[in-house]
């Protein structure tokens, strides 16, 4: 009764959670589209587009193709990596079939097969085989994650819990079955229920079951009496065989049962079968309840995402539908890290160590931003990562869940710019050079002292030799195309290149950091090439930008709100 209540509760939570997640697709926004559109409008537009995709006979073909080849056969994963495909297929089919054929056996399996009994072959064997698949899948994932040099990704708490629950589910299932195999009290109960109270019959059956079915009895029944064994076997045929196949078919549980045999009778008093039954059932309920709140949700969202992708990419969507595709995409992320494995800027992560450079980490942060659940520092870190991304598109090509990551990054960059978390080139212009100079001077005390590693780089702006040869001939200014593009360099750029060099000579580097010349430099290197004194003007301007990025963090304009939930 209690368990049934738990089951219904878990189901309710699960459904409510799924509903909540689904709702978010039409309430949250990423990107500039659908501004001002309400939930109902967005939902109607989304449903219409999705419906049109399913109903359209031409589209239906590609939908079915996607269902078969991407959702069921996952050919797009096979094309990338055979091991990854094998692992995922094992996990996918292992878990899916266990849910459908074992957890829901009363509703599904029993209705299809009239002779269904969980202890009967092929069901007994298959159930164990599916368990083997899941164990194989999990083990392979763990080994490969360590071995393939994937940039280390932080596990989310909900994912950890999901993994624990899953493991508990499998382990408890195996242990439960093992105990059920060896338990003498269960034998007694089952014998009385299905055969009768006749002590001779029970004794004969005991002998047979002790020998062939691995039950532990204390004291063990007499061996060597072939007549008793034969009558036990006959009794088994009459009363048990229709539901019980030999337990050796339980390839996972039976070996455990045999190992447990010596202590089985003693433990029997504690009713381990009940204990583990509860554990198993509650673990299942837990996983069900947790489904919409962890990566387990990808069971629903990933196929949906793949289906949506089969109808076209974000560019082909009506603008009002694009945010829905994006939020769905974030929900379909399993944090598998394949995108980061192929990310073109992952070497930069190895130097700068901001995890939000990596696409697999950005999805989580972006979900938090969209939900309005992130700190300023988090936004700043996400911004830094976002603007390092070069838009090469590889993450999108490799994502097993079919998420249009490229579109997510482009859309989120627009949001970042609008909320004051744009790139350094955006926010550096929100204050004047003089203001930045003040900030720089105030923050000097906070800057960490240079370590040996920091010194292992090139330092021009702090080294007088770099610009001591400057004679202020203004050749660099004359050849600069940015200066030439301005009608009033002082108004537009604050300082011209040779004036920036002069600031350095006067040890006023802090004043140079915020000059617009430094940030409008187009890096064409004409200044450095034409300098008659060999001053590395362009390299120095680069260094000033590097220093500004190190010393200043994004300070958004006052009164700026983060995107609405």
């Amino acid at each position: 009764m209690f368990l049934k209540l738990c089951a219904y509760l878990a189901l309710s939570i699960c459904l409510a959670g799924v509903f909540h997640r689904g709702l978010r697709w039409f309430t949250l926004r990423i990107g500039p589209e659908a501004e001002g559109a309400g939930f109902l409008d967005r939902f109607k537009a989304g449903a219409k587009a999705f419906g049109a995709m399913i109903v359209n006979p031409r589209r239906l073909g590609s939908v079915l193709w996607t269902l078969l080849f991407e959702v069921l056969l996952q050919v797009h994963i096979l094309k990338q990596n055979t091991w990854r495909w094998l692992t995922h297929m094992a996990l996918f089919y292992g878990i899916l079939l266990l849910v459908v054929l074992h957890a829901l056996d009363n509703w599904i399996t029993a209705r299809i097969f009239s002779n269904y009994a969980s202890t009967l072959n092929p069901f007994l064997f298959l159930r164990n085989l599916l368990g083997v698949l899941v164990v194989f899948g999990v083990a392979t994932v763990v080994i490969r994650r360590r071995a393939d040099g994937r940039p280390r990704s932080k596990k989310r708490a909900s994912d950890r819990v999901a993994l624990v629950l899953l493991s508990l589910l499998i382990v408890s299932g195996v242990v439960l079955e093992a105990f059920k195999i060896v338990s003498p009290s269960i034998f007694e109960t089952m014998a009385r229920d299905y055969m009768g109270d006749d002590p001779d019959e029970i004794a004969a059956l005991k002998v047979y079951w002790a020998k062939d079915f691995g039950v532990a009895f204390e004291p063990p029944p007499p061996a060597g009496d072939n007549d008793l064994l034969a009558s036990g076997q006959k009794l088994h045929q009459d009363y048990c065989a229709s539901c019980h196949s030999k337990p050796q078919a339980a390839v996972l549980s039976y070996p455990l049962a045999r190992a447990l045999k010596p202590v089985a009778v003693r433990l029997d008093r504690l009713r381990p079968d009940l204990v583990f039954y509860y554990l198993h059932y509650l673990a299942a309920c837990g996983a069900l309840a947790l489904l919409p709140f962890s990566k387990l949700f990808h069971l629903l969202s990933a196929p949906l995402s793949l289906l949506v992708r089969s109808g076209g990419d974000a560019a082909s969507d009506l603008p009002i539908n694009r945010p829905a595709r994006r939020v769905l995409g974030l929900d379909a992320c399993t944090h598998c890290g394949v995108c980061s494995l192929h990310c073109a800027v992952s070497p930069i992560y190895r130097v700068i160590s901001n995890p939000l450079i990596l696409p697999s980490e950005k999805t989580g942060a972006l979900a938090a931003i969209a939900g309005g659940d992130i700190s300023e520092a988090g936004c700043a870190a996400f911004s830094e990562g976002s603007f390092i991304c070069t838009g090469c598109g590889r993450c999108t090509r490799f994502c097993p869940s079919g998420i249009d990551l490229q579109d997510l990054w482009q859309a989120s960059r627009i949001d970042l710019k609008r909320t004051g978390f744009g790139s350094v080139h955006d926010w550096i212009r929100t204050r004047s050079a003089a203001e930045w100079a003040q900030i720089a001077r105030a923050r000097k005390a906070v800057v960490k002292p240079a370590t040996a590693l920091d010194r292992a780089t090139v330092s021009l702006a702090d080294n007088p030799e770099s610009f001591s040869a400057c004679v202020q001939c203004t050749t660099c200014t004359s050849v600069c195309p940015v200066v030439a593009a301005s009608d009033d360099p002082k108004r537009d750029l604050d300082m011209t290149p040779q004036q920036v060099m002069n600031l350095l000579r006067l040890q006023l580097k802090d004043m140079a950091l915020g000059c617009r010349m430094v940030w409008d430099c187009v890096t064409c290197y004409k200044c450095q090439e034409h300098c008659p004194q060999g001053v590395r003007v362009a390299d120095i301007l680069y260094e000033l930008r590097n220093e500004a990025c190190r010393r200043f963090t994004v300070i958004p304009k006052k009164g700026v709100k983060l995107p609405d939930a």
Partner: protein
Amino acid sequence: MEKDLEYITCDLVVIGSGMAGMAASLFAARRRMDAVQVGHIGEINFASGLLDVLGVHPVSTGRVLEYPWEGIARLIEDEPRHPYARAGVSQTRKALAAFIAFMEEAGCAYVCGRDRNLEAITPVGVTKPTYAVPHTMINGILALSESKPCLLVDFMGLKGFSARQIASCLAGRWKKLRTVRLSFPGLSGEVHTERMARALEIPDIRQELAAQTKPYLKDAEAVGFPAVLGIQDTVQVLAELQGALSVPVFEIPTMLPAVTGLRLRETFERRLPAMGVRTLYQKSVLHADRLQDGRWELEVGGDAPEIRVHSRAVILASGRFMGKGLHADRGGVRETIFNLPVSQPPNRTFWHHKDLLDPHGHPINRAGLDIDDRFRPLDGREQPFSDNLFAAGSILAHQDWMRQKCGSGLAIATAYGAVEACRMFLG
């Protein structure tokens, strides 16, 4: 694995891309010598465009010369080790004439005083003696000498050029000199000469400038501008402005950054390759060695050798301290490529006189390479260091080109002499 060193052979390598280096390459090309020129384009950007032959002698009295050639003759007598003594008056005249003819051909005509120095106007307002000026400046010199009523124009935001300052310096002798400050068409704030010069190559801008200037003309018989009247199109720009204003128009050199040097540089950059000189600009000679057969092997490159050059002769015109031909430190002055002995004061304490503006100048300014009559640097024992190494230009010792006002003449004449000597050597 990296590209192998490129390999070039030639008759002559000219090291240096200043006045002397450019002139030497020019003369070598004219003599159909197979020449390669190596150098960093830099200092020539600072040229004023004026060609000084000899403006002051003796330096100690500061006496301004009216007749440069006679001046040189006297200079040679007074200072027999001066590079002009090696060149001689007649060779110097030939050299200058050849140089000016080349500039004329290239579209940058010069006007020279022939036997007399011209009195050129400088941006600070004093005048200086010079031998030849770009054609764009001659009308100013004439206006000054005849004290014609004149309008001087300067521009808002142009640093280092004040028409009022020039006028007030010259007020004593040039009465009817008026000034006006205009806003350069289309620009505001700080303006730069190259930007303005390129802008004036556009007809619309010229017309606007003329229109802006016209109301201030009144009785002026000439109009002077800072030197921004075009880069390569100076003839066109000048002609159009004169047409629109109906009076002679002239330029006055500006402080740096100045387009006058840029004009020289671009002229050479375009012409020399077309004349057959192989140019290796923005590179240095990193290493020099003598081969068995007497030829020079030079490794040329940026930060690492890129090209190996085998040459029958070398002309060293690498300049002084700015040009990096000479290097000075606490230990002394050395020549940076061949490590040639440098004629210099015995030690640092003798480099400078106590008085910064000592009329004699300072001994360090006269340091440099000693040469023989064939422009070959000496080895410290009065013998030529090598029979196929020549030197020209400001790297030479016993001259003070800034105070003597003989920079261009010295560069061109010694370049000419070195090329002639080299030709004789090559046979």
